[in-house]
Each structure stands twice: as C-alpha cells, then as structure tokens.
C-alpha cells in the first residue's frame, strides 16, 4: 500500500516558474523516505501539495488512498508536518501552543496535557515550556515544530529540513528521535540536503532535481550504486610514485582519480568487480613501497552518488526533451487506439518520463 502517491504532479507558479515537473512519487507504508535535492528543487512545494496547502496545476496527489485538497482536514488529522524554519504564534508558550494544536486536533484536554508534557520532554524543551516563543532560537523552534507535528500521534510524518539550524548535539538528538519514531506502522518523509542524515535514518531515498524525481529506490541500492567503482586510500611515504602509476591499474582512460594531500579517491569506470580493483590498488601500494594508512570503498559515497545523479540528469536534459517530444508524437498517432482500448501511453511501452 502506498501512503503517498503522486501522478504527473505539476506545479507552475503564475505561468512563470515550474516548481514541479510531472513528479511521480510513491511512498510505501512504514518507510522512512528521504527526499533529497538541492535548494529550489521542489521538495517544499511537494510537501505543501501533499498537505493541501497548495493546489497542483496538473496531475494528482493521493494520501492514504484519498485525493488531497485544502478541505480534507480528515486526512491531515493523520499527518504531522514540520515546515522548514517554522513560525508559531510568538506570544504563546510551548505549553499554550501545543494545547492549541491539541484542541484543533480535537483531543481531550487531559489527554493533550499528558501528550504535550511527554513531547516537550522528548524534544528537550521542558525547561523552556513556560517561556514565550518570541525569544526562541531556530533550534528551539524546530524542536517545538517536531513536538507539534507529533501531537496527534500521526501515521504519516512529513519533516521538511528537520535538522536545519540545529547544533551538532541537537541534530544527533533529532536523528535519534526520527529513528525512534520510525516503524510501528508510521511512515516518515524527510526532505533534506544533508545527505548524511538521510544515510543514517532512511530506508528509501528519492532524488529530486528541478521538480522531477530523478531517482527513487531503497537506501541499500543507493549505497550499492555509490560504492560501485570507488576506492579511497590514505598513504604515507613516496606518494608521488604511487600517483605516477595509478593509471596502470586499469586500461587507459578508464580511471579517474582525485588527490587531496595524502588521500586518493580512485574511480574505476570499468565493469569488473570492486574486489578486483581493490586487489590491484593493494598490489600497487605494495609495489611502490608506500605505507597504507586507510582504505575504503567509496568516500563521501552518498554525496558522490547524489551529485552523479544530478550531473547525469543535467547532461541528459536534451535527450529527455527529445524522448518526450517523440512520446508526444507517438501518443498523438496512437491516441484513437489508446482511447478505444483504454491504454495509457506508458502501458503501451511509451514512457512520458524516460528513465534516467
């Protein structure tokens, strides 16, 4: 079952700016889905449409198998939302604000009090519970936002940049909290551009770029793709000799490397298993007489994979446009058939969004 499903979701602001471009997103029940993308990629717009705060220009969005709209408060009752840099009524205190959220959710007053006390403790705001929100730091606002999102014990939790503005301790605490919240049939969607956060908590990941989902799959698959062909070593000794012979590790032109002081990040573009390449690197270390301090498959691996996907997407832009144009032509040609048979263009083997 998909908790969230969008189909060709498109959002164009005032015919000027395309925020979402036929986005097809599916999030399974119980998943912790990381939506990763650069600033302005369309993450927040996606969330705002998922919550019914904005209407899509085209395409459809369903949450819990129901079409979302601004009037669907019943669906939102089951969703908790933390916006980026949240704003709250500044004259309120965390207690009065969470009480207000509880009353909006239709919670019994006593039940709301118990819940808010528990949540303020969990997000480490118990000591500031009676202070006015007016003087809160960004981190405190984010933590209050998390508490507010959890007031109704939601089945779906949407967190937009949950670690933004937090210090390292706060960030770690938030990540731990998300980990604790995952499972138990709760689905979590996190938008972020901090990839290490995604790597630490997410079971699935989607990469969004220029309003399109250019990759979606399990985190393990993303890791596998990232590790493929990259070996990092840190050396001591005659590193010059090692560098001179790096190209002998594989056929000419199939090796790319980057040197950062005594560290080498070597990318093999060939198709042989990673273990084979690792063996060759170790042999070269042995031959050149350098001392090996550290070896790993992949450095900043998720970042590398993420940037690689974005780069691929950019370079394939023209191909995609051409494929889309071809699809349009074919669709037009076959429209009478498709109409008669009730077959979508994608069902007929024609993809409107060619795979990246």
């Amino acid at each position, binding site marked *: 079952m998909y908790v969230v499903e969008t189909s060709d979701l498109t959002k164009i602001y005032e015919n000027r700016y395309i925020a979402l471009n036929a986005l097809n997103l599916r999030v399974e029940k119980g998943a912790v889905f990381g939506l990763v993308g650069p600033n302005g990629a369309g993450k927040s717009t996606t969330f*705002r449409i998922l*919550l019914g*705060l*904005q*209407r899509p220009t085209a395409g459809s969005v369903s949450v819990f198998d129901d079409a979302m709209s*601004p*009037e*669907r*408060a*019943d669906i*939102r*009752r089951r969703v908790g*939302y933390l*916006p980026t840099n*949240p*704003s*709250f*009524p500044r*004259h309120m205190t965390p207690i009065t*604000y969470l009480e*207000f*959220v509880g*009353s*909006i*959710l*239709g919670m019994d007053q006593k039940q709301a009090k118990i819940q808010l006390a528990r949540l303020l403790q969990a997000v480490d705001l118990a000591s500031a519970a009676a202070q006015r929100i007016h003087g809160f730091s960004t981190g405190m606002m984010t933590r209050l*936002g998390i508490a*507010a999102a959890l007031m*109704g014990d939601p089945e779906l939790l949407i967190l937009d940049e949950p670690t933004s503005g937090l210090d390292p301790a706060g960030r770690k605490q938030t990540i731990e909290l998300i980990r604790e919240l995952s499972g138990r049939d709760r689905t979590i969607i996190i938008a972020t551009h901090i990839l290490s956060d995604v790597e630490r908590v997410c079971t699935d990941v989607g990469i969004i770029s220029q309003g399109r989902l250019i990759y979606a799959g399990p985190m393990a698959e993303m890791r596998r793709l990232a590790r493929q062909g990259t070996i990092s070593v840190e050396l001591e000794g005659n590193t010059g000799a090692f560098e001179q012979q790096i190209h002998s590790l594989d056929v000419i032109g199939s090796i790319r490397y980057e040197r950062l002081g005594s560290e080498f990040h070597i990318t093999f573009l060939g198709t042989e298993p990673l273990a084979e390449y690792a063996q060759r690197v170790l042999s070269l270390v042995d031959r050149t007489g350098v001392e090996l301090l550290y070896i790993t498959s992949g450095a900043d691996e998720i970042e590398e994979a993420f940037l690689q996907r974005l780069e691929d997407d950019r370079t394939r832009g023209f191909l995609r446009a051409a494929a889309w144009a071809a699809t349009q032509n074919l669709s037009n040609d076959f429209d009478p058939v498709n109409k008669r048979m009730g077959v979508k263009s994608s069902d007929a083997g024609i993809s409107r969004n060619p795979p990246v």
Partner: protein
Amino acid sequence: MQAFLAILQYDFLQLTRSWISRTWVLLLVAPAIFWVIVAENGSELASETMAFYVTTTLAPISAFAVAILASSAISGEASIISDSILSRSVTRTEYVAAKIISRIGFTLIVYTIVVIPFTYLMFRFAVDDTSFGGVALGWLVLASILTFLAALGITMSIAMANVLPAVLTVLLTIILSGAVLQFLGLSWMSTTAVIDQLPQTFRGETAVWEQIRVLTVFSSLSLIALITGTFVFRNKDL
C-alpha cells in the same frame, strides 16, 4: 467543528489582549462620559448630543480601529497560517469562518458595550427628545455600517499579503465612496449621509423604510464581501 471553536477562541483572546482594542475602547468611553456630563450641565438635547458623539468620536475612531483589526485578520497571520494552523486538521472554511465571526463579533460587542450604557445615560441626564424606535434603528444602521467595514477589512486581508495596504484600501474605500455615490446620485447610501441624518433618525423623524433600505444595502454588501473573501481564500495557494 472542534477546530473552528479552537480558532475562534484563540482569535477572540488575541483581540481582547490587543493594545489596539484596548485603546479603541478607552477612546470611545472617555469622550462618552464627557458628553454625558456636558449634556446634563448644559441641558442638551439627547438626539443632538448622541449624533455629535457619533460624528466626532465613535465613527472616525471605530472606522480606524475596525479597519486595522479586520484587515489584520488573515494577512497579519500570514507567516503562521500554513505552518501552525492550516497544515493541521482544519479546513479553509472553518478557519475563515472562525475569523469572520471573531472579528465581526468583537466589533459588535465593543460597539454594544459602549453604545448601550451611553444611550441609557443620555436618556437619564440629557433632555430626552428621542423616540425608542428611532434610537434603536439609528444604532442598528451604524452597526450595519461597522459590520460592512469589518467584512471589507477581512476580505482585503485575504486578498492582500500585507496589513498596511489592506487598512489603507478599506479606509480609502469608505472615504471615497461618499464622493462616488454622490456623483452617481446615490448619496443616501453613503456613510456621511447616514451619519448626517442621525439626529432626525434618533428623534424618529425619518421614514422607517429609508432606514431599512440602508440596512439592507449594507448587510448585502457585507455578505457579498464575505462570500467573495471566502471563495478567494478557499482557492488560494498558501
């Protein structure tokens, strides 16, 4: 319904705590007491004194206060509407209905708590030349004008992103409408004409149907403004 009541309560509390509301009440009450004393000492006519109070104090100060309070109903909360309220289990209709009832309700409550004691004191201490029906109708017409002002303010707060332009638009609409309506030969519809006629209205010297016509016009305009505002808000991207 729960969400509607929660927002209504929240907004009403905000209004009662607002310094604009407190100043508004103070600026209405102090001159009212002053005019009661003057009316008693100078044996003034109740109808003339009440109308003078409306022209010099109640109408201008209330217009200003209601324009600010109503025009900040939604745009004043722009930063928190989506983050704190509408992303939760609240429909747009519930939110806007709570705002309308709260802002118009608050305006009418303040108006009533000032006008009723003031009228009683004028009956008692001034020279009473009024008719009960005329006074009731006069105050009712003024209430309908204030309601229209509040409705227009709420609509502007939906249509405009900032409070200040919304307030200015409401005030300019009221000020300029007099001239425009006079030009169109509909001067009986203007607020200035209604206020100018108040002494006669309080004495019961104006035709009832004329007052009912004014009441109907302002009530209809309020309804149109609110329906338009609600429609725009329901279809707005936040």
